[in-house]
């Protein structure tokens, strides 16, 4: 439940009006003794999709993991006004945070059905109707071991695990990574529908997908957040995208640095 009461704190420059559902301030995180996120501020708008952008290795995934408490972190992370930073991961998730990790991370030894059953959260509806409506294939392949699915199918399982529950916010990390163009569109369509139910923080390298889905954008450089604003404005500013992402936003939105693996081939 998103409160409609205005709280009157100063929004980050260019952030959307209305209370953010997720409010991150001064978030720092470390992995293996190394600082990977440094003093990140970001707001996730209460409706729609907020894109989290940045070059490869800048700390997008780490930021999401830090929000979830999957890596050691400090700062404030407020979900709907309540601080999460001292909670263990499972309690954060139980408060209504859905997570679609960067590399799908389905349990390969478990069947598709078991992957979904494991994702059922206590105190939440389990919306198999929605999930099977979005991904009819998962129903057909229910008894198949998730490890034997194709990359695209695994991504569906990963998305379905998050969409199965009632969420306050969804954290989705590169859902189109390594997918064929047809599947990219499919994922994009699913996320658009999911965004009608719960706000999304989306990490995405495919700028066409960002353009289609996101209303707001936050850009990280060197583990810090440097840009907040409407996604459309950001993408329209070619010089800015070039400087912050190292890509040309116009003309297909493919990264120019070639190292991100977004060339359309499906990963094994």
């Amino acid at each position, binding site marked *: 439940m998103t409160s409609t009461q205005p709280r009157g704190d100063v929004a980050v420059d260019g952030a959307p009006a209305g209370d953010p559902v997720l409010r991150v301030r001064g978030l720092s995180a470390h992995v*293996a*003794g190394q600082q990977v996120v440094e003093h990140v501020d970001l707001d996730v708008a209460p409706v729609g999709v907020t894109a989290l952008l940045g070059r490869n290795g800048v700390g997008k995934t780490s930021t999401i*993991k830090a929000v979830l*408490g999957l*890596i050691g972190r400090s700062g404030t992370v407020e979900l709907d006004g309540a601080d999460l930073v001292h909670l*263990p*991961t499972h309690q954060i998730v139980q408060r209504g945070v859905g997570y679609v*990790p960067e*590399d799908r*991370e389905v349990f390969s030894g478990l069947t598709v059905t078991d992957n979904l059953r494991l994702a059922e959260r206590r105190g939440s509806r389990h919306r198999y109707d929605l999930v099977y409506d979005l991904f009819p294939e998962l129903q057909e392949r229910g008894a198949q071991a998730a490890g034997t699915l194709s990359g695209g199918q695994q991504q569906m399982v990963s998305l379905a695990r998050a969409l199965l529950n009632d969420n306050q916010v969804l954290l989705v990390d590169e859902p189109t990574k390594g997918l064929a163009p047809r599947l990219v569109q499919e994922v994009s369509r699913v996320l658009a529908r999911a965004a009608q139910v719960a706000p999304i923080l989306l990490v995405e390298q495919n700028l066409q997908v960002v353009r289609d889905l996101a209303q707001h954008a936050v850009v990280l450089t060197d583990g810090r957040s440097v840009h907040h604003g409407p996604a459309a404005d950001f993408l329209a500013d070619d010089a800015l995208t070039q400087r912050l992402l190292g890509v040309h936003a116009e003309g297909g939105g493919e990264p120019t640095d070639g190292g991100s693996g977004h060339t359309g081939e499906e990963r094994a």
Partner: protein
Amino acid sequence: MSTSTDASAGRRAWVGRLLPLGLVVLLACLPLLDLNLPGVLPGPTYTPGTLHLLALAMVMAALALSYHLLLGVAGLLSFGHALYFGFGAYLLGIVMTELELALVPSVVVVLLAGAVFSTLLGAISLRVTGIPFAMVTLAFAQAGSVLVRRDPGRVTGGEEGMRLPTEHVPDALVGVADTRNLYWLALAALVLAFGLTTWVQRSRAGHVAEAVRENELRVRVLGMRPFLVKLAIFVAASVIAIGMGMVHLLLNSGAVPHIVSAEFTISLLLMVVIGGVGSRWGAVGGAVLYVLLNQRLTVLAQAEWVHDLPAVLRIPLSEPMFILGTLFVLVVMFLPGGLAGTVTRLRGRRRSGGGPEEGAARLEEMDDDEQDQTVGAARP
């Protein structure tokens, strides 16, 4: 920086250098003095019993230093270090008896054989790291222990143990009357082990090992082979342990299968962890504390008044290993960094090359889990 802090830092450096020297001189003089430490030592310092106990403490301290190279420097949790200690003790006796060699050439033969032996086993064990490494070293040591107990070819004496072939040993190192000489030998061995440990730690291999422990991936990226570095440290630690095994054989006039057992390695682990992982002085202090405490607790176990206690108190009090095991658990749970960490914490300052939370941090670094788990590990 002001001159006064410079001066005090300079003074500290001097004290840091003089203190160990003074300690060694004091220890060297102990057999000539009549010092009493009731409750700590069994008698005046010139008596053979006390000298033997102190010599044993010093040999164990030297052995703990070699274990520190594995655990504290290379981040290797070994459960088979006793194998090398036992190798030194048993092989020295066997070489002297079977090849009829004098002490010094025998020592050389054992050291050479030990270097080959530890390189071979190290190369196999280091194919795995972390916990699997612990299990594998344990298995090899177990095989050694079985071998010693089975006594193939009637050379190890089986369960009874092996007697020192005194006919090949200089008279000065034989018998109770010469405990003093053995004591000085043990002291020299400890000083040598400390020097060697320091040297290995400051060598290039030591630095790279330190880096490997902190972040193996980064070292690999830099094009260095963590395997070779770890192997070098493993062999160095093993050779020192072999040397100490030989001193132990002389000191105890024999060897028993216990010194090859897993329990023996575990007692080394206790010493190093209680002393403080990553600290040389911690390893020495932990070993001395362990040996003296073990001796005191054994005396306590036989005390008259303990036997009159009700069973709930009598049984735990008459089992030294129960008390030491409990102490160890308490240190691990509530005193991260062990004695050395606590001393540093109390002094309230960071020493260069190791801070107060060092011990706990070192143990965390050894943990291979963070790299294994794809998402990372949750911390509540």
